[in-house]
């Protein structure tokens, strides 16, 4: 794609010399649209495209359907250029006034089909009303996090009669009345998210179920609903996805007394419903034969979730995170399900080798298995898993400390399709890592807190896993520049790498990693050898960099900030605590137009005035973490002003602590905490 663009650029240069006979004028709009269809991966490509010529510019403007603006101030100009936008994502605009929404409504009018306002809290129902009045083709609206929105806003959404998907999570002031307006006026509603709408009760949800018969997906997580609305929900003919996370009003009685099951339900999420137990589970499964996905995470820490299951279920995926699961429970699950594809037993107590063996022996199609923190499983389980589940794609065995190198060797030998592997906090060593390098399809490898691994193993991974996109080496202290440079050479698709507290890492690693052009997340917390030289190399060559954690990289100074300001236009989130950055660096950082989250604790070189200037300058900030000692030195007027733009301040009072703990000590401490 880039080649194509570069070629065009070159041609453009030639074209400019002979403007009258530009070959591009001959290309029809359809052809240009086809080219543009293929340019989706990199946003910068389209920019280059539109700069080719005046007609290319116009064609690109006409072609664009979705837009994610970084700043709301320029919206009128942007929208007057792209006036056929149908999907507008405003999540990156923390400050959206009613007037902005009015102007958006006026400019886009009926062409707007989807709008996402979930990043802002500063608009009110009046803005939504202007959208409702003018954008009457709107099909999707997301007003999540609008904690100040009232029933009036819901009523305004109700006036969008064509709306099909409404997300209003955390709209805490919306009550049944507002939901009632939506229910009555939006007969086409297919998706509704009421997550965390604590003002909504059974009445509103039941009315939704009565009026919106086309509803396919309903999220009533963290609301106060009880069994009263369940019969109405069960009557919905098309409901496929129901999420009731954290509904404490739902108990065994509600589910057991429910006369009929949900008609067409496929996915049910009941995680964190702490008042349900094994009785509900069997009732749900028996009444809903078409259920494919069931999430019972953190439902009941005491009862054994699966004991006494009878019947035949079509379940594909079941999540039992945090529940007590006995061996008998797993046996009955294995016997009653036809074909399990995904099983999550993360943090389940009571999981044994026998239980795992029974499951995998019966369900050989298992694709995803999560056994995080199942501390009692050993190599026996791994032998069973690897011998039966050849199609395993994702395996998580974080903190399974009893598994030895024998087990890892089996994974490498028998699971060639493995793409995601999490072996954080295990006894993995170089030998194991070498055998894991046989899984050549790996895209995500998490081998943090594996104190035994060294460059030797990592080099093998770098040589044989070219598809790796995510690598986590958190506190794997045996890793040095040598291993990382091999990874950077072999895994050019790398997007995320975490090397926090790998204290041997230096600028050399970063220089090598700068070859990975897709890198967007870099965590090198506590790598005290890294200096501005290395990080500037990253900034200059990894233009997609959006998340950066350089806490306690004491050598990094203003020079790095200046190169960020110059190159990293996509930087959204940065943590530069303890760095040697001064006012100059901070104000340079503030010039990055889309910076949203900044953590600046214990910056010795930063003054209150410098901070104030940076805060004023950086208009896109959504969240700033600062040390509480700065608070008295910044005028409340300034704080109010920044807050009114949609920025949140978080004043922390962490003690200044330069010394790094050794990773061995840290690991021992964290294990002690767990045992307690």
């Amino acid at each position: 794609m880039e080649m194509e663009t570069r070629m065009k650029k070159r041609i453009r240069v030639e074209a400019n010399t002979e403007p009258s006979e530009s070959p591009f004028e001959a290309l029809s709009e359809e052809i240009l649209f086809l080219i543009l269809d293929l340019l989706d991966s990199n946003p910068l490509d389209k920019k280059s495209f539109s700069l080719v010529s005046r007609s290319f510019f116009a064609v690109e403007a006409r072609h664009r359907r979705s837009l994610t603006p970084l700043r709301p101030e320029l919206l009128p100009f942007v929208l007057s250029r792209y006036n056929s936008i149908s999907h507008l994502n405003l999540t990156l605009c923390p400050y959206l006034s009613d007037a902005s929404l009015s102007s958006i409504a006026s400019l886009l009018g009926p062409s707007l089909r989807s709008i996402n306002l979930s990043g802002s809290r500063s608009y009110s129902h009046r803005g939504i009303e202007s959208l409702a009045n003018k954008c009457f083709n709107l099909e999707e609206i997301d007003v999540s996090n609008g904690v100040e929105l009232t029933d009036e806003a819901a009523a305004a959404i109700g006036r969008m009669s064509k709306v099909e998907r409404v997300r209003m999570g955390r709209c805490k002031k919306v009550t049944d009345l507002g939901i009632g307006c939506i229910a009555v006026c939006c007969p086409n509603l297919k998706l509704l998210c009421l997550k965390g709408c604590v003002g909504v009760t059974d009445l509103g949800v039941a009315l939704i179920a009565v009026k919106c018969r086309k509803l396919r997906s309903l999220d009533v997580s963290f609301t106060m609903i009880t069994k009263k609305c369940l019969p109405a929900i069960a009557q919905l003919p098309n409901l496929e996805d129901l999420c009731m996370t954290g509904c404490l009003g739902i108990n065994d009685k509600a589910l057991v007394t429910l006369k009929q099951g949900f008609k067409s339900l496929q996915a049910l999420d009941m995680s964190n419903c702490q008042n349900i137990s094994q009785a509900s589970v069997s009732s749900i499964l028996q009444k809903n034969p078409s259920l494919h996905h069931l999430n019972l995470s953190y439902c009941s820490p005491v009862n054994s979730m699966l004991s006494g299951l009878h019947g035949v279920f079509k379940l594909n995926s079941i999540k039992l995170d945090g529940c007590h699961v006995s061996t008998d429970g797993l046996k009955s699950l294995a016997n009653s399900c036809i074909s399990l594809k995904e099983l999550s037993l993360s943090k389940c107590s009571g999981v044994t080798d026998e239980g795992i063996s029974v499951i995998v022996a019966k369900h050989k199609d298992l694709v995803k298995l999560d056994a995080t923190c199942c501390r009692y499983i050993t190599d026996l389980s791994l032998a069973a898993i690897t011998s039966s589940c050849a199609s395993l794609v994702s395996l998580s065995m974080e903190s399974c400390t009893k598994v030895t190198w024998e087990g890892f060797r089996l994974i490498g030998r028998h699971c060639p399709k493995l793409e995601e592997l999490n072996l954080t906090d295990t006894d993995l060593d170089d030998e194991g890592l070498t055998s894991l390098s046989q899984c050549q399809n790996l895209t995500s490898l998490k081998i943090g807190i594996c104190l035994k691994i060294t460059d030797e193993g990592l080099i093998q991974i770098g040589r044989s896993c070219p598809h790796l996109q995510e690598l986590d080496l958190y506190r794997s202290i045996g890793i040095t520049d040598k291993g990382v440079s091999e990874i950077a050479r072999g895994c050019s698709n790398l997007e995320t790498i975490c090397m926090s507290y790998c204290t041997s890492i230096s600028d050399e690693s970063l220089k090598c990693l700068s070859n990975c052009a897709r890198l967007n997340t870099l965590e090198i917390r506590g790598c005290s050898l890294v200096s501005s030289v290395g990080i500037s190399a990253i900034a200059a060559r990894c233009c997609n960099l959006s998340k950066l954690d350089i806490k306690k990289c004491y050598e990094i100074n203003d020079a790095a900030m200046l190169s960020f300001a110059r190159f990293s236009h996509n930087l959204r989130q940065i943590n530069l605590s303890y760095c040697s950055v001064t006012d100059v660096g901070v104000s340079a950082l503030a010039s990055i137009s889309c910076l949203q989250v900044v953590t600046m604790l214990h910056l010795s070189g930063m003054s209150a005035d410098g901070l104030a200037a940076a805060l004023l300058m950086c208009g896109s900030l959504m969240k700033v973490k600062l040390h509480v000692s700065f608070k008295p030195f910044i005028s409340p007027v300034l704080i109010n002003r920044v807050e009114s733009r949609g920025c949140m301040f978080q004043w922390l009072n962490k003690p200044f602590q330069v010394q790094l703990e050794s990773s061995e000590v840290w690991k021992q401490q964290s294990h002690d905490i767990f045992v307690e």
Partner: protein
Amino acid sequence: MCMKQIIGEPGIDLSSDSKMDLKLTRNSESFHKPNSSNHNLNSFNQASQYFPNLSPTNFLSRAENLQQNLKTKSTNSFEPNLNSGMATQNPPLDWDPHAMLSNLSFLEQKIHEVQSLVQSIIDQQAEFSSRPSELATRQQLATADLTCIIIQLISTAGSLLPSIKNTLLSNNPALRQLVNPDFNNNLKCEGLIRNFPETARNSEYEDLLRNLDNEADWMKEPNPPPQSDIVDANPIDEHDLKESDDGDAEREHLPPGSYIVLQLEKEEILAPHTHFCVICGKGFKRDANLRMHMRGHGDEYKTPAALAKPSKEPGSDAHPVTRYSCPFVGCKRNKEHKKFQPLKTILCVKNHYKRSHCDKSYTCSRCHAKKFSVIADLKTHEKHCGRDKWQCSCGTTFSRKDKLFGHVALFQGHTPALPMDEVKASGSGQGNDDMTEDLGGYNGNFASEECLTSMDVKGIDESRAYFSPMNFDGFGALDEFGRGGFDLEDNPFAFIPSGFGQRSGDS
């Protein structure tokens, strides 16, 4: 206690004029000796037929008369023998020349009818030989007419000589056969069912009938007649039917229920008083009040026995559970309804009838909108009136949120209305459109936040000036507001401010 087992109670059929005359005379004559044959309240329809002719005085006297009847009957229900005893004691009062005359003329007419019928059979005898079924039909008709005449004759005479008719009819099996319900069905005679003949001790006439179609015989009839019980305005047919209907009804109610169905008349239901003084005619709501009143009429009413609460009649314990029917034909609470649901007590009957079949004459003094036919309902409402905070877009208000949501769920297009203060706030949101137009005029200058906020405020202020709060008080205003949101008819491009075109042109 004051129930009157009107169901199937026969009445003499009179023209409305003579009937009214009768009432008036009877009213002046006596209060304490009613004759059930002098009033015809069996059917709601008939009663309502008479009403247009009633002058206020007529109505009053009629009502008193009714009350009088009521009173006597309630007494009868306690003391079944009292009635006949009183009847024999005071025959002259019972004998009404007008009624007698009308009865006799009816008999005359009926005899003529039968005469002509028989004559026609004789005349067409040749034709009937080929169609025997038609002949049989004619014969049945004649027999039924004769039966009718006999019964009418007996009842007429019976009003004079009540003691005779028992022996006369009960010992005559032929006569009993004649009153077979099947005949009545063939004749298409329609009338009210009397569900429970044992309770029909109200009058001599009913006594007679009870003896005529004595319980057991009728219950053993093999074919239960269909329910053709719509009240017919034809007085003759109705009269014919009543007797037999007793039997029909008895069988009808037996299979489903172990309960007796009683039906009060409209007038009884609506009567303000249910207990009447037999001496002066004053009405009371409670029996106890009447007893206190009676003390003033003489020492015989001051005895402990007279003042004591009348104990239940011993025989009544044997009665099955009693339920009530609404006299309004077609009502679900009417016993002729297919899915009849009986009413439990007389109070239920009264409240049901007033609520369902009467005008709502009591208006709430607070909201002047809600009307009630039962005064207790009004009082209950007035307690809560003005506190209804849950409102629907149709203007209906509810005191409870779940009631509102039930209403909204039931009706298409009704939405819960937001509280008034919020609606006013949204009214200022309408002004928002003006604000947008202003924005258009700014030609994109609105990037700066100061500008936006100031305009925001301006928009609100303007709207306050434009829309007086009065606009949003009525529901009409609400509706308009709602419609504004759904107005899709307008040209979509009309929304785009005029400045927009220029701006896009510039870029």
